[in-house]
């Protein structure tokens, strides 16, 4: 009788759904990206129309505008390192080192700045939804959201962002949804597909503002 019970227990365990953690560890390069559902409010339209990269693009001053902008840069890869209590995402572009806590009881509001060197990028908290890593970010400072995928997109300090990282063999799908009623009539969705870079390493970016600005091409001001 006991033997039968054990067999049933083993069978029941084997047929139970397995919630395996997303396997995202590694270095990834951008394969493609696209922006969906771009519906700007009048305030968003106005800012986009007035956008001038020479004056307004923070990248020209070596400041990473947002994670969305950072991920749009095609050549520098990103690295994901998963730990029991946190996820580290190291973006080669602008040397952005992001730390995302995975504590269940922690809200994004309570989380520390995701990038200690760049508090304007907000506070992030992560969790797993089956095979997908989900990151919520709030507290992003008002300013530029994107200068490359769709140049001249802005964000308000009310923006809430949900990122979903899902592995698929040697590719990783990242879906970013921005909820910002100040500049967007509907949630803005940005999709990225990354490709695993075997034996990839993140190199130092070491951006210097005087080498990044377009002013270096212009004649000296009189």
């Amino acid at each position, binding site marked *: 009788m006991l033997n039968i019970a054990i067999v049933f227990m083993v069978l029941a365990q084997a047929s139970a759904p397995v919630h395996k953690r997303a396997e995202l560890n590694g270095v990834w*390069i951008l394969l493609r990206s696209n922006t969906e559902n771009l519906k700007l409010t009048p305030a968003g339209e106005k800012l986009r129309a007035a956008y001038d*990269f020479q004056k307004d693009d923070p990248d020209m001053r070596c400041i990473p505008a947002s994670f969305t902008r950072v991920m749009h840069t095609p*050549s520098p890869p990103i690295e994901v390192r998963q730990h029991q209590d946190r996820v580290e995402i190291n973006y080669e572009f602008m040397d952005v080192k992001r730390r995302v806590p995975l504590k269940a009881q922690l809200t994004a509001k309570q989380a520390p700045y995701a990038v200690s060197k760049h508090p304007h990028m907000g506070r992030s908290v992560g969790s797993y939804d089956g095979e997908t890593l989900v990151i919520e970010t709030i507290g992003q400072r008002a300013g530029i959201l994107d*200068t490359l995928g769709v140049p001249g997109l802005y964000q308000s300090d009310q923006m809430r962002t949900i990122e979903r990282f899902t592995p698929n063999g040697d590719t990783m799908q990242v879906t970013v949804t921005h909820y910002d009623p100040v500049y967007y009539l509907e949630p803005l969705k940005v999709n990225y597909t990354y490709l695993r870079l075997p034996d990839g390493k993140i*190199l130092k*970016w070491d951006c210097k503002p005087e*080498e990044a600005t377009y002013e270096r091409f212009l004649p000296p001001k009189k």
Partner: protein
Amino acid sequence: MNRTIAAAAVIAVLLFSSGEAGLAHHSVAANFDASKPMDVTGKVKEVAIRNPHSQITLEVAKPDGGVTEFFVEWSDKNALIRRSVPVDKIKVGDKVTINVSPSRRLSNLGYFRTAQLPDGTVLRDCGFAAYRDSVQKGTKITC
């Protein structure tokens, strides 16, 4: 020969016309016109392999004497390393001819395509798309 003269004329127009208007935004495809490649010949003044963009500064002879600077923007240092581009073959003081995609708005700027070195060899950079394809296929980068 005709092509060289035409290219020289284009360069002259670009070099000596005004063009300081701000660019719409910051991306290679948006800022440089790949459909109008042109040659720029000059003496290498500086080679700066760096992030976010590398830069070669050429001293180009002006038709009426003297020289003017032409800037060749190129990929970031890290990408050039990953693509194994032999950038050290471009040396300060050498006379080179660099084929560029001209800037859409700045007359003294182009984006690197190839460089003809003093010994006649051509230095190529396959670019990020070719690199990405090589990673995807698990093959060596070619262009």
